[in-house]
């Protein structure tokens, strides 16, 4: 027992050759966000507050695909989604199609706490944001040069991709209509448990590069990208369509509950057995203070810490695994 926290900045085909000027700021951001989360847990903040805080921070950092720095739709616009869930009560809130809200995760929390609904989207979500007085800005605030370039690359290659771009390679997998085979990163998320066993999860994203306008991913789908109950809290990242089909977040919890697997075993099973390789990553914590970060992609930006002093910040698989 004890508190634990884990966060991710996206899973995908992150090349080992990632240049330092791109790697270092992202690692620093992970460290920074982890510290914020740890400080909050040590100050006895409820995990819901902790995950919201950390994800807000990740949303504000332009290097990650959420909030500012979100990838662009095919129309060159930003459509953000987020989701938050409380393990004990299973209360949850989700939003999609946001264009002006600075911190989508906070709006998701307001949906959870201030409405009788779970999921609001597009105009309705934006209107709700104004009613609630959350901070909104001009949509251009969220758009970064890096993402404009990603979109152009994707259009040239005529594919939809998760945001971690490699330089354009020849299309290797063309048998399905689903653009596939390239870098897959997307989404930020955080899960936390305190030493009373309270669990929470939060996920936020801009989605897929060059996605169709109105495309919804796994992030706001309870049970797919985000899920928490009394046993564990999970936040997933990767190729949204695969995460939805695999009901990834719910499955981790279901395996623990129905098959008696441990957190680590359940997470490993989901990423290794039930989802196609190269598509999925997740972070999860259990009510007893365990933490796991599992992925079947080349890498996943991630960080975690537990009360007994364990800390990990990484991108690629750690040597032991």
């Amino acid at each position, binding site marked *: 027992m004890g508190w634990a926290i884990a966060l991710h900045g996206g899973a995908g085909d992150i090349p080992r050759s990632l240049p330092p000027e791109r790697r270092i700021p992202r690692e620093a951001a992970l460290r920074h966000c982890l510290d914020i989360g740890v400080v909050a847990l040590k100050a006895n903040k409820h995990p819901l507050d902790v995950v919201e805080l950390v994800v807000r921070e990740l949303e504000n950092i332009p290097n990650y695909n959420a909030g500012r720095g979100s990838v662009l739709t095919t129309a060159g616009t930003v459509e953000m989604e987020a989701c938050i869930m409380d393990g004990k009560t*299973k*209360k*949850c809130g989700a939003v*999609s*199609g946001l264009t002006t809200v600075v911190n989508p995760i906070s709006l998701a929390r307001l949906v959870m706490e201030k*409405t*009788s*609904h*779970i*999921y*609001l*989207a*597009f*105009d*309705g*979500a934006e*209107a*709700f944001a104004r009613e609630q007085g959350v901070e909104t800005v001009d949509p251009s605030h969220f758009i970064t040069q890096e993402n404009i370039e990603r979109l152009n690359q994707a259009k040239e290659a005529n594919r*939809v991709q998760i945001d971690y771009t490699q330089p354009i390679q020849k299309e290797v997998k063309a048998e399905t*209509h*689903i*653009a596939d085979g390239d870098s897959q990163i997307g989404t930020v998320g955080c899960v936390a448990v305190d030493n009373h066993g309270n669990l929470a999860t939060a996920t936020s994203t801009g989605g897929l590069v060059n*996605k*169709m*306008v*109105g*495309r*919804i*991913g796994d992030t706001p*789908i*309870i*049970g*797919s990208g985000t*899920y928490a109950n009394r046993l564990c809290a999970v936040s997933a990242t990767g190729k*949204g*369509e695969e995460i*939805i*089909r*695999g*009901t990834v977040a*719910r*499955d981790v919890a*279901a*395996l623990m509950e*129905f*098959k008696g697997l441990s957190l680590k075993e359940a997470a490993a099973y989901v990423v290794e057995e039930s989802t196609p390789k190269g598509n999925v990553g997740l972070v999860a914590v259990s009510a007893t203070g365990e933490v796991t970060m599992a992925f079947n992609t080349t890498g996943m930006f991630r960080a975690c810490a537990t009360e007994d002093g364990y800390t990990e910040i990484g991108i690629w698989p750690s040597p032991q695994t």
Partner: protein
Amino acid sequence: MGGWAIAVHGGAGVDPNLPTHRQEEAKKLLTRCLNIGISALRSNLPAIDVVELVVKELETDPPFNSGCGSALTAKGTVEMEASIMDGPKRRCGAVFGVTTVKNPISLARFVMEKSPHSYLAFSGAEEFARQQGVETVENDYFITGMLGMLKLAKEVNSILFDYRVPIESCSARAAATDSPLQMNGLPISIYAPETVGCVAVDSQGRCAAATSTGGLMNKMTCRIGCTPTIGAGTYACDLCGVSCTGEGEAIIRGTLAREVAAVMEYKGLNLQQAVDFVINERLDQGFAGLIAVSKNGEVACRFNTKGTFRGRWLGACATGDQCMLGGIWNQALWWESRRA
């Protein structure tokens, strides 16, 4: 074992004052749709085609809350949602915020098969519909005498499921407003809209599920419920196909449809056990009903009756072995046996 099976539901309504002629109308329509599904299965149409066909029929007919006859948002408009899932390979498609597409379930199918995504909404979904050439109509095509109900809902300042007594009947209206069902101390009714759904397994053991709705009467615009949420309102895999209706938020929290499959897969329960478990254990607060089929040709329909109200749930099912049409109405089963 083996053989086809099919179930359809027309949602859950809890108004005990629903006039008999409306009950009969609903039962007749459901039976007709079931028969359409049965014929399709008999002619070896794959399950995924069958569920789409049946739900299209339910959407096209006004009595249920989907497509034509959808409940209205607070602004008096219609925003429809639908999702479909094909068991083998677990392909899925979902749409919400659909305002002009005549058959949202068919659009969901197009998303599954013709787009790189699983889920499209609002202008994106509408645009895709036009690209695909699906049939579209004006938004007011879907609005069928619901404006009166919307007005009533606003008056009692609650979000209502839509199985309400038509306002013509004044005494019933008075009874309805006095009834504890509407308020319950909550700003929203916890009762279910008449979402429609169909699950089927064909003679090759392939399962599929489809669900469609207009959502809650007087809902905030752009509120999304369980119907387009894969894993909540709809789910299908190798083992089974499931479609749920009821209080959307409870179904989402309980990831109900996936839950049925998960306990079958991870705990080895059979279909009926799984359905019973989920209804009994997984709905903390909230009213819901579900229909499910298994790859072995079994069918199960259940709804819960928690709370002080008298639950009423409309569903019907049939299997290849027995060809029985059955339903649950006012907590009583009705069955008619039929020869093949």
